[in-house]
């Protein structure tokens, strides 16, 4: 071993140790200050139409029944709390759900876009997950893209008469996976690789985050199914209240 290789080996060991004790495995929020300014602004603008649509839909919901205000706020708090609690993970590291897939299934993607950005602001300020400059990018991946896919898959499975539990699992699982893919692409667009450009960079980001994100997506899918089963057993009137179960399905 040359001297340089020895140093590299030591660096690798230190790195591996750091990685082993890395405190939290988050649902891949891009950290504060990690994106160049132009990308922060661009992703914010991309989110705007979704946020406006979500805002209008929430406003109408509250107009039709004022009672919905506290209900919507509670749903937002629920998403925050569910995403801030430690979930049982295989490796023993502490990881968190995104909760947005569940939110999209229960409350619809329009409501989740506005609730999502509020939850992301709270996560940045209160939990230091994500950041203010990366709020636009994180909102797009977690509050817009993921929930839209989750909701789309849930509805599609409903049309195809797939078993409800399977469809809830698929929706939450694929919503999570999609969020992780979008985040990787966002990072790759900002930092294209020297060898192979944006595409190679995207593959690299997908690769390094896969070991934490894939198991997390499976666990999130399972937990979402368990939560929905619990709700279907104990909370039929409440579910009808938030529009998750329509009259006939409930019986």
């Amino acid at each position, binding site marked *: 071993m040359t001297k340089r290789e020895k140093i*590299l080996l030591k660096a690798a060991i230190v790195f591996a140790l*750091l*990685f082993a004790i*890395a*405190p*939290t495995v988050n649902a*891949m929020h891009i*950290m*504060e*200050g*990690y994106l160049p*300014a132009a990308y*922060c602004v661009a992703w914010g603008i991309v989110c705007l139409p979704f946020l406006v649509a979500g*805002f209008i839909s929430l*406003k109408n919901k509250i107009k039709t029944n*004022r009672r919905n205000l*506290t*209900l919507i*706020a*509670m749903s*937002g*708090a*629920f998403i925050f*709390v*569910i995403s801030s609690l430690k979930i*049982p993970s295989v490796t023993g590291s502490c990881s968190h759900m995104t909760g947005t897939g569940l939110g999209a299934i*229960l409350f619809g993607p329009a409501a989740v876009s*506005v609730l999502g950005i509020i939850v992301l*602001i*709270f996560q*940045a*300020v*209160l*939990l*230091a*997950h994500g*950041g*203010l*400059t990366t709020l636009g990018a994180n909102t797009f991946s977690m509050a817009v893209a993921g929930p839209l896919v989750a909701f789309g898959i849930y509805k599609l499975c409903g049309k195809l008469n797939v078993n409800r539990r399977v469809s809830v699992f698929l929706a939450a699982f694929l919503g999570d996976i999609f969020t992780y893919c979008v985040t990787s692409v966002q*990072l790759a667009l900002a*930092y294209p*690789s*020297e060898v*192979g450009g944006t595409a*190679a*960079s995207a593959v*690299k980001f997908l690769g*390094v*985050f896969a070991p*934490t994100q894939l198991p997390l997506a499976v*666990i999130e899918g*399972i*937990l979402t199914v*368990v*939560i929905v*089963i*619990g709700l279907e057993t104990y*909370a039929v009137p*409440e579910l009808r*209240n938030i529009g998750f179960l329509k009259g006939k399905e409930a019986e």
Partner: protein
Amino acid sequence: MIVIDKLCYQSKFRYVNASEKFVYAVLTLILCVISRSVLTAAVVFFVNVWLTVAKGGIPFARYGKLLLIPAAFLLVSTIALVVNLSRTPLDAFAFPLGEWYLTGSSASVREALRLCGKAFAAVTCLYFLSLTTVMTDILGVLKKLHIPGLVIELMMLIYRFIFLLMETASAIITSQNSRLGSRDYRTRLRSFGSMGSALLVRSIKRSGVLYDAMEARCYDGELKVLSEERPAEKKEILCIAGYEAVLLGMVIWSWIR
């Protein structure tokens, strides 16, 4: 229950004018992100740590632990930035893997290090805001920025409900643990799921009760809360303006250099 929130209420800057703190944190954050030099990042980092820990009275050990939160993300994504898989070795390092090399150029290593420095400096800006300004004050500032009233109202309610729900959740978790709810992995998954559904049921019920309570107190579509306004001191404003001007100068210098 939320560490940052708890620490924030202890900060010595808690009663300083909220808009002033907000403007300081956001301006510094923007300058830090658009700057290209490590020097700016270093200045921002140390000034913020000094302000939050030495002046604000946040325990240093706590602060250090908080700084570690984004470390996992930073480590993993920096590897992705630096390491390439290519047929030709680059100049910084190269490990042969059959016919390919795990390799990186020294330009990208430098770039990655600079990015890490910048990101950590940006994180200290965020921490300055979240460790000195309580959420209700931040909402007051957002109101002044003409964020729609409905959003502010939702944020206020959500902030309140977070603590209600966390209390409920931790009570449920405690009682699950005392009944062998985390015996093995399967049970843990089931416990978490049933906690989630119980939490949602309770929160929906609670939201109904809360609305009744609000209506009983003449709620008519607008939540009004008293906010205390403390005027910003001229001296502090001058200091902030001077500091931001220096930072701006450094940023411009980093561009033209």
